[in-house]
Each structure stands twice: as structure tokens, then as C-alpha cells.
């Protein structure tokens, strides 16, 4: 079953064409890494899938529904971005409690999830006192509260130091086992570690789609270098 499907998707911002005829599909249980240089269009793809943007042309379907029209389909996805969507003046627990209520999720899962991410002993601390790494862990906890079958990770390791990145990738690998994943990154190694399919976007076009592992860095440099001229 196709979890996500993009057909001939074009997205324009004014006269600027951010995406140009993207075709992409992801089956249940697959994990797809969206790679590409800055400004390639990765985040635009993610925003289209999560319903934050409407396509200018083409069709975007998530679980066979149109995400920007259908609010209920958003229950089936969890989104982690480099923005954490957390409120600094609420505690970790209160943040998760708020999102539990928005997603009609039983609040009893909060403690379990905080434990999973090593934040249980800080649950009554204000998020403004958290480090960037802790905030990002809490952000992933927020995204999986409602146990979504589709998890979208938009550069979740951005702004983290090497150790923070390694820890976060470990947490993500742990929770991603039974989910469909879309993971955007510049980092080819992270992509290879987490995903089994790879799409490379450059200048708004899909320039590579495949499952080559081990040699991805060379493929990435070749197609991105070629596309950038």
C-alpha cells in the first residue's frame, strides 16, 4: 500500500519554481532519505506531504488522502523539523500533554515516552532550560506521542554537535523500526544509517531515486555536482 504519493508535483513561490515535476511514492514500512543541497526543495516536499503547503500543480496523497484538505490524515503522521514546535514556557510534560490533547491521545503514554528519550527526570523543567539536543529529543517524543504510522523527519539533527547527532540518530533508529519514514538530510552517512531508499533532489528536480547503499556518497556527489553544473 502506498503511504505517500507525489504525482507531477510543481510548487511555485511567486515566479520561483521550488519543485518541478516531482514523482515519488513510498510504500508502507519503507524508509526514504531525501537528500540534496541547501535550497534543493527537500523541505518543500516535506511541507507538501505534511499538509503545510498546497501544490501549485500535481497531486499529493498521504494514505490516499489530500493532506492539506484533510485534517484527520494528520493523525497518521508525526513531523519532526529543525523547529521543535515546543513552547519554551511550558514544561516537557505540559508540552506533551498539550499535543496529546490535540491528537486525542491517552496522556498515560507521556511518562513512558519521556523515559524512552531519557527525559523523565526533567519532565517538570521548563523547555527554555533544555539544551538543543534535549529539545530535539523532546520534539521527536512529541511527534510519536500518537503512534503515527508515518514519521517525517526534516533535518532533525540540524544544529546539533557530533555527540548530539549520534545520540539522536540512535533514538530515531530505535523508534523507526515499524514505521514508514521520510528523512531529509544533507548527511549521506546518516541517510545510509537510517534508510533503505534514497531520493536526491537538486534545483527542485528529482535527480536520483534508488536503493544503492555503501556507494551513496559517490552517487550523491556525482548527481548533485552534475546538476549544479
Amino acid at each position, binding site marked *: 500500500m502506498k503511504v505517500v504519493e507525489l504525482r507531477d508535483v510543481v510548487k511555485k513561490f511567486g515566479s520561483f519554481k521550488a519543485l518541478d515535476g516531482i514523482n515519488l511514492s513510498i510504500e508502507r514500512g519503507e524508509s526514504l532519505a531525501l537528500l540534496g543541497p541547501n535550497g534543493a526543495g527537500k523541505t518543500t516536499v516535506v511541507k507538501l506531504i505534511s499538509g503545510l503547503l498546497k501544490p501549485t500543480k500535481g497531486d499529493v496523497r498521504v494514505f490516499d488522502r489530500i493532506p492539506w484538505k484533510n*485534517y484527520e490524515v*494528520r493523525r497518521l*503522521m508525526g513531523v519532526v523539523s529543525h523547529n521543535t514546535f515546543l513552547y519554551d*514556557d511550558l514544561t516537557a510534560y505540559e508540552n506533551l500533554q*498539550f499535543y496529546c490533547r*490535540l491528537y486525542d491521545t491517552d496522556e498515560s503514554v507521556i511518562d513512558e515516552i519521556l523515559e524512552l528519550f531519557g527525559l523523565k527526570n526533567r519532565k517538570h523543567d521548563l523547555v527554555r532550560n533544555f539544551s538543543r539536543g534535549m529539545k530535539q529529543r523532546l520534539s521527536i517524543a512529541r511527534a510519536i506521542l500518537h503512534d503515527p504510522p508515518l514519521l517525517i523527519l526534516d533535518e532533525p539533527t540540524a544544529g546539533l554537535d557530533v555527540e548530539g547527532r549520534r545520540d539522536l540518530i540512535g533514538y530515531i533508529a530505535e523508534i523507526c523500526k515499524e514505521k514508514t519514514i521520510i528523512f531529509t538530510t544533507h548527511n549521506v552517512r546518516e541517510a545510509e544509517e537510517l534508510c533503505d531508499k534514497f531520493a536526491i533532489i537538486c534545483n527542485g528536480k528529482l535527480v536520483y531515486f534508488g536503493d544503492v547503499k555503501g556507494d551513496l556518497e559517490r552517487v550523491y556527489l556525482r548527481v548533485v555536482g552534475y546538476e549544479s553544473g
Partner: protein
Amino acid sequence: MKAVEIARKDLKIEFRAKGTLNLMILFALMTSMMFSVSIPLSLAKKIAPSLLWLVFLFVGVLGYGRAFLREVELETLEGLKISPVAPTSVLIGKILYNLVLMILMEAIILPIFIGLFNLDVANPILMVLSVTLGNVGFVIVVSSLSILVVKSKMREMLLPVLTFPVVFPIITSTILAIRKSMGGDLEGILSPLALIVGFSIIMFVVACLTFEYAFTD
């Protein structure tokens, strides 16, 4: 119910940080004091309804717009957009939050203002009703218009520019209603109050119908 959750979350943040409420109260007290010091009491009593509404107007534009602006500054607005919540619930949540701020403002400012100007109010209940209904309409307009300016760099300046022409019928009707309540004119107050209620309902319906377009993409 999602609207209530959004309002509850905003209130929890506001009562913890107290940024908006403190600013609103401070600004309202300062303006009221300045008016009371600089305008002779005999004249002030005549123009008190306009002065009172001026205070609420400035304070409201300053404070009520913050409900959405704060979400933008904290980069949490997208968190609401990707959640399974209808845009109208988000709008109603923000209106509820602003209504609570408004009631608190009224409870603090109204007695102080009446005391500072030594106003004789023939019918205090009608005066409170007039101010409250006017403020409810004002909150609805500011809350729904503030989403339009959140992406703009000039948002603090744009919001009053957009708000004042739209809210003008409420301003004039509320000033008239306050004046009638001060004079105890029960019959004369009905038409301005009806206009405020009617206008507020229309603005609320229009906001609910159009908010989705402003909220998404």
C-alpha cells in the same frame, strides 16, 4: 474542545511569563493617568467614553495580536498547522484566550478609570455590558486579522492599520452605548448595543469562513 485546549495552553504560558498582560496593564494605567492629569475634570467627564475606549483600543491592538505573533516568534504555529485541528478551532482558541485577557483588563482598568475621573455612572451594569460587548467585538476582529499580518516584517504596524477601519462601527457604537449608560438612558442604549452584537456576529462568521485560507499556505 480543541479550542479550549489551545486557550488553556496560551493562558498557562501568559500567567507564567506575564509578558503580554503586564504590558497591557502598564500601558492602560499610564494612558489613564496621563489623561486624568492633562485633561480638566469638567471636560473629561464629557469625553470620558471616548477616552476609555481609546485606552482599550491601544491596549487591545498591543495585546490581542500577540496571541498569534507569539506562535510565530516561538516557531510553534506550524506545530498547530500540522496537528489534526480545524483552523476555526485555532481561531476560537485564540479568541477565548484574548477574551480572558480582556476580562482581566476590564476588571482592573474600569474601576481605576471611573475613580480617576470621578465619573457618575447612572447604570454601572449597562456600562460594564457596553464596554464588554464592545471589547468582545474588538477581540474577534483583532484575533482574526492578526493571522493575516504574522508573516509580515511590519506586522506590529500593519495590524492597527488593518484593524481600525474594520473595527470603526464597534468603536462608535461602544462610545455611544457607554455615554447612554452613564446617563442611564435605557431606551437609547439598545440600538448601539444591537449594532455591536450584530457586527460582532457577522465578523465572527466571516472570520470562521475565511480563516482557513489565511491559516494555510
